């Protein structure tokens, strides 16, 4: 789950990291009011989950409340990378000496958290040369000891035991504590602004592990899925919309990807990725079919290799949708595995002949989608 910038900053602030003075607003009148309250120049930042707000015009500066109101008005009227803007964060404009970069994520190859730091922070961090990127894996049993943070600061070229060095050590240690305690997959500060001896998180990008949300009850919830994707998620299905015309359902992420690969191979185009794996029952399967139909595909392929998934459940779901709602497009089914015979018998009753091999079924559906 991605979090909005202002939510991340609230967390930082709670843990004692410095963030710019600021407030959220949802209209331009309030933007002017807050700008006046903050005093001096301000930054107006659209709160969207996209990573490139600045380049898309979603961040503006203003020298006084009137300018702030105008800038806010402008941002509210735009979309940032396809997202409508509902909330703005109005913040003091910082005196910036340097912009650093600091993040913690998971190094999947090492199976450990990794600290990433750079003294070349700012907008184009991905373009910074490897020489300026410091990476430090953390042994989770040892944890973030003081010496680890100190050595990162040393490698950043900042004098240890100086006020700035000490503040950076504290910032790194605190960020690691946040990373662990909120079950984050990513915490990122870019830029980490150096202003004299002060170290200020001028931005925040946080992603929480969805699997851990059950124990992160104090964190706010953010929904970034489309309505259809959310419906699928609530049904325990993994669903992504694509641009083609063949509706796809399979059971398991790997076999779903394999189905997509085969469709492409035979010259077809998939309308969606729908993984109904892990024991989705009859009702879930029926809902999955309805989801696929709602996207108006030209044809549908169902590719089931039943392990936990039972073929008769899938067949019953298909039969009931056909009877109750009707399926206006051709459906091609491949059905093998657990309770295969029962499933095929049910399908036969509604006039569907199941295939044995996925390649045959997919060849067929691609033909039908032409």
């Amino acid at each position: 789950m991605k979090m909005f910038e202002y939510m991340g900053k609230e967390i930082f602030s709670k843990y004692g990291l410095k963030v710019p003075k600021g407030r959220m607003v949802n209209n331009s009148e309030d933007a002017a009011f807050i700008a006046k309250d903050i005093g001096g120049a301000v930054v107006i930042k659209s709160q969207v989950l996209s990573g490139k707000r600045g380049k898309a015009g979603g961040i503006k500066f203003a020298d006084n409340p009137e300018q702030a109101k105008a800038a806010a008005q402008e941002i509210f009227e735009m979309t940032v990378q396809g997202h409508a803007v509902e909330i703005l964060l109005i913040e003091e404009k910082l005196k910036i000496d340097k912009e650093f970069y600091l993040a913690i994520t998971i190094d999947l190859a090492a199976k450990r958290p990794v600290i990433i730091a750079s003294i070349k922070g700012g907008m184009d961090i991905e373009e910074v040369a490897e020489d300026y990127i410091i990476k430090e894996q953390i042994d989770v049993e040892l944890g973030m000891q003081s010496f680890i943070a100190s050595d990162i600061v040393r490698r950043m070229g900042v004098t240890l035991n100086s006020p700035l060095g000490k503040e950076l050590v504290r910032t790194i240690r605190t960020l690691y504590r946040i990373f662990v305690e909120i079950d984050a997959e990513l915490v990122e500060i870019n830029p980490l602004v150096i202003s004299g001896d002060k170290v200020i998180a001028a931005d925040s990008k946080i992603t929480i592990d969805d699997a851990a949300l059950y124990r992160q009850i104090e964190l706010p919830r953010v929904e970034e899925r489309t309505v259809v994707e959310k419906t699928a998620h609530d049904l325990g299905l993994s669903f992504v919309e694509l641009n083609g015309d063949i509706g796809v359902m399979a059971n398991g992420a790997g076999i779903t990807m394999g189905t997509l690969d085969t469709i492409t191979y035979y010259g077809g185009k998939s309308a969606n990725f729908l993984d109904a794996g892990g024991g989705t029952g009859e009702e879930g399967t029926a809902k999955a079919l309805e989801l696929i139909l709602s996207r108006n595909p030209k044809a549908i392929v169902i590719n089931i290799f039943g392990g936990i998934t039972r073929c008769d459940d899938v067949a019953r779901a298909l039969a009931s949708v056909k009877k109750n709602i009707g399926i206006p497009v051709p459906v091609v089914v491949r059905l093998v595995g657990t309770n295969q015979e029962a499933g095929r018998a049910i399908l036969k009753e509604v006039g569907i002949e199941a295939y044995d091999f996925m390649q045959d079924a997919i060849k067929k559906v691609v033909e039908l989608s032409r």
Partner: protein
Amino acid sequence: MAIIIDETTNVLVQGISGKQGFFHTKQMLTYGSKVIAGTSPGKGGTTIEGIPVYDSVRAAIEKHRIDASVVFVPATMAKDAALEALAAGIKVVVVVTEHIPVHDEMAIVAYAKRVNSIVIGPNTFGIVSSGKCKIGIPPNQFFIPGPVGVVARSGTLTYEIVGNLTAQNIGQSTVVGMGGDRVVGLTFVDVLKKFEQDPETKVVVLIGEIGGFAEEEASQYIKEMTKPVVAYIAGKSAPQGKQMGHAGAIIERGKGTYEGKVKALTEAGAKIVELPFEVPGIIKELLLKL
């Protein structure tokens, strides 16, 4: 022979009284696995399907030699269960449970490394040494003994490929599901090394997918292998997974794509199949050449 588990492996089921644990205990027994004990806190002293149930792993260890355990407890308690098995000295721990928080997974993997045990999963279908022992959840009928070692990241795709092999009467030495999560106990290299040393395994099938570096790492080792490796990488035309911000980009630096993986594997000498159902044909060819 086979790798990791065989006909002598004594299996403990953690969470044996739950719906999943109960169902798959029966399936594993049917397959012939030596499931000899289960745990379920508060149910110690009872039996399930004739299997004695204990309150804790240690209580089971006091009465039985346990070589492997399989974790069927809910995600909220899975870390505790896995650590319990590892702390009790069990050398192979199969974590079937899905949706375990990734921080918990890192903790499990770190501790397993420290105590020098193997963790299969989390979010795995398990491991099958065909005809000898199945630990996990795959359907019994598709696994028959033979010369093919299979290692995979995802489940149903493995059944698809193994099922096709079995349909053509090509059996498997051991089929290992490393687990579908981003952080899991084994790497492809860990498993490939074991296949390389296993006399029963003549050829290896690697079933990978886009994202991560597991296949690129595997390529480094495949170069040194004497046994042929056939690889299928799923996701050539699948949507990109979500990326971990700039930090992810910095770490990945362009790795993890279909093209990158295929290039690395090809250069290492692996045979790439473009579609999953092409595996049996190539394997047959390779076996005829041996």
